[in-house]
């Protein structure tokens, strides 16, 4: 980690910004000039140095800011973190995965040493030095999932596998795109995907579930999803709709560049070894329209994607009200020239 963690906000004065290097590594999710659902799952293998795939769990310049925002959300609403009683083994699995991944990927920030079940965890970014007994929750200040996800970017859902289905039985969810853990907890895979338009008719979820049930330990997979958010707000939860919903009426041709954000979720899936559960980290990346168009290919392509998006999907993603204004603004960055395949900047 050679960047400095920024103290920035995702609420009130919204000081969040991407550095030029942060923009270059943004996971722009459109490989073509149009978008439709697909079972776009691929192996979560290491990618290029500096990319969001370099390590299995990505830590970036927004780490400290995101962790402070999570602490604020939890202080206001503790139900954003819940685990059913049978998920304790999976909680420890997750703690191990996140500690090991972060310590291996960013050894100048995190370190983990083990002596049997006596573990020592150091997190320099948040000034934490913890000695605890693996498997004994009383030796940590929180239950293991809450403890480690207060120190890991992204939301985390833990899915129990039984009856040939996956059940959302634990999670830490504070940076979600308008869904609620408190509402979904205990639901199965088909139930929590209930409201998505078009995808059910396409059999997308049946195929995805079949695939997930066979997910192997040591072979994680990933996919992307996306939406848009007004202002760089991480916590766009149903519980706080009154805070962010009205923002959608504030978009004008003059403020699109700074106020409208593309919100990309990197969703990964890891089989957890002791519990046979699956952890589903959902990592949110934000980029403003004015940052996005600094990469000419992305500006051209996103204009085309947004313009051609089917109305059902625009409605589902909550873009309908401001989409024409954003498309119009983006059009000044689309000279009609071709875009190369793939999502990398030219």
């Amino acid at each position, binding site marked *: 980690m050679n960047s400095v963690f920024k103290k920035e906000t995702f609420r009130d004065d919204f000081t969040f910004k991407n550095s030029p290097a942060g923009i270059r590594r943004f996971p722009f999710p459109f490989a073509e000039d149009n978008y439709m659902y697909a079972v776009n799952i691929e*192996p979560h293998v290491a990618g290029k140095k500096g990319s969001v795939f370099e390590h299995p769990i990505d830590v970036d310049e927004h780490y400290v800011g995101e962790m402070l925002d999570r602490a604020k959300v939890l202080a206001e609403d503790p139900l954003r973190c819940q685990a059913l009683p*049978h*998920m304790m*083994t999976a909680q420890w*699995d997750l703690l191990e995965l996140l500690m090991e991944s972060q310590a291996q990927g960013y050894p100048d920030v995190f370190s983990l040493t083990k002596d049997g079940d006596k573990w020592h965890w150091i997190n320099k970014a948040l000034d934490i030095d913890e000695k605890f007994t693996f498997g004994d929750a009383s030796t940590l200040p929180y239950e293991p999932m809450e403890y480690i996800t207060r120190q890991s970017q992204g939301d985390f859902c833990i899915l*129990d*596998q*039984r*009856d040939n289905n996956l059940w959302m039985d634990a999670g830490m969810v504070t940076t979600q795109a308008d869904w609620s853990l408190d509402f979904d907890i205990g639901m199965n895979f088909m139930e929590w995907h209930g409201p998505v338009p078009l995808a059910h008719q396409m059999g997308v979820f049946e195929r995805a579930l*079949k*695939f997930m049930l*066979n997910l*192997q*330990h*040591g*072979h994680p997979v990933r996919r992307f999803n996306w939406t848009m958010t007004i202002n760089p707000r991480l916590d766009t939860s149903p519980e706080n709709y009154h805070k962010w919903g009205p923002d959608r009426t504030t978009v004008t041709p003059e403020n699109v560049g700074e106020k409208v954000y593309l919100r990309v979720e990197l969703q990964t899936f890891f089989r957890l*070894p*002791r*519990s*046979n*559960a699956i952890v589903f980290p959902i990592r949110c990346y934000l980029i403003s329209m004015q940052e996005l168009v600094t990469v000419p290919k992305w500006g051209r392509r996103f204009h085309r994607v947004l313009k051609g998006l089917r109305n059902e999907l625009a409605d589902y993603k909550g873009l309908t009200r401001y989409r024409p204004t954003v498309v119009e603004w983006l059009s000044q960055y689309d000279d009609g020239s071709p875009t190369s395949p793939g999502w990398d900047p030219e």
Partner: protein
Amino acid sequence: MTKRVDHQVEVVEIVQAADTVKRFRLKAVDGATLPYFSGGSHAVITMRGTDATGAPVIYRNPYSLMSSPTDPAYYEISVLRVPVSRGGSHFMHDQVKVGDRLSLSNPINLFPVVATGRKHIFIAGGIGITPFIAMMDGLAARGGTFELHYGFRSRSHGAYWQELQDRYGENRVKLYCEGEGQMIDVDRLLEHQPLGTNLYVCGPAPMIAFFTGKARQAGWPEENIHFEQFLAPPSGKPFLVKLRKSNVEFMVGQYQSILEAIEAQNIEANFLCRGGACGQCETAVCEMDGEIEHNDHYLTDDDRQSGKKIMICVSRFKGRELVLDL
């Protein structure tokens, strides 16, 4: 998804556990570590041997992991010596020695303990005991409620019954020795269980059909009935297979599976369990002049009737030629 080899392991101990059962202890080579796993998991072992003519052959078999899931310092598996081996069983019994190296996949669990279950009843027949050993170890570590009903042919033929009864006591481990005329009172067992009890059966196919059928008759919900049966790929007459995308054709031998024959051509095909259970090796049939013998327990009746799908790890073909979309 398929990953053939994840770990190189060394055989560090071989124990004759019963008349026809050997237990192998496997450790990662070069100080590497093996992953934790959940009770009920299996791993696929790759064995490299030679056939009767001295030509190299590869055997791949799934084995349940029976060592403690809470201590992955080593894995243990048990191998039954079958009278007619397709290769793997006799190779493990006759060729493998302490110090030999084998390749191992990561553990896969197609037979997990239901984490929300209030009580767990395990019914084992013969070598079907192995997944339950790790399942009980995991449950005991977290204070779960379980009982084992274990049937075997004779005291010298049954493996691990003494150790299990010593460890968990006579109330939790009930033994049924066929040679001594002991029989499980299945109706009584299934009728007197609290709500939320889960039933797990592992053993030969007729035994699984018997106990799961009894449970359904007794009104057990499908969600609470679990079984695992690894089918060895059945043998049969040789037949011709063509792979459309790879543009090759070859014969599948009497004791070979389609998957094994494909691998012998150095072509990659997906698989996980190699036992007809997981669905990973489902392959589209382009054309056929004959009839598929579906031996898996994955495809639906509609799938089978369509003639468009085949599980290449266990199913065979009767006819002139089978063309697959590979």
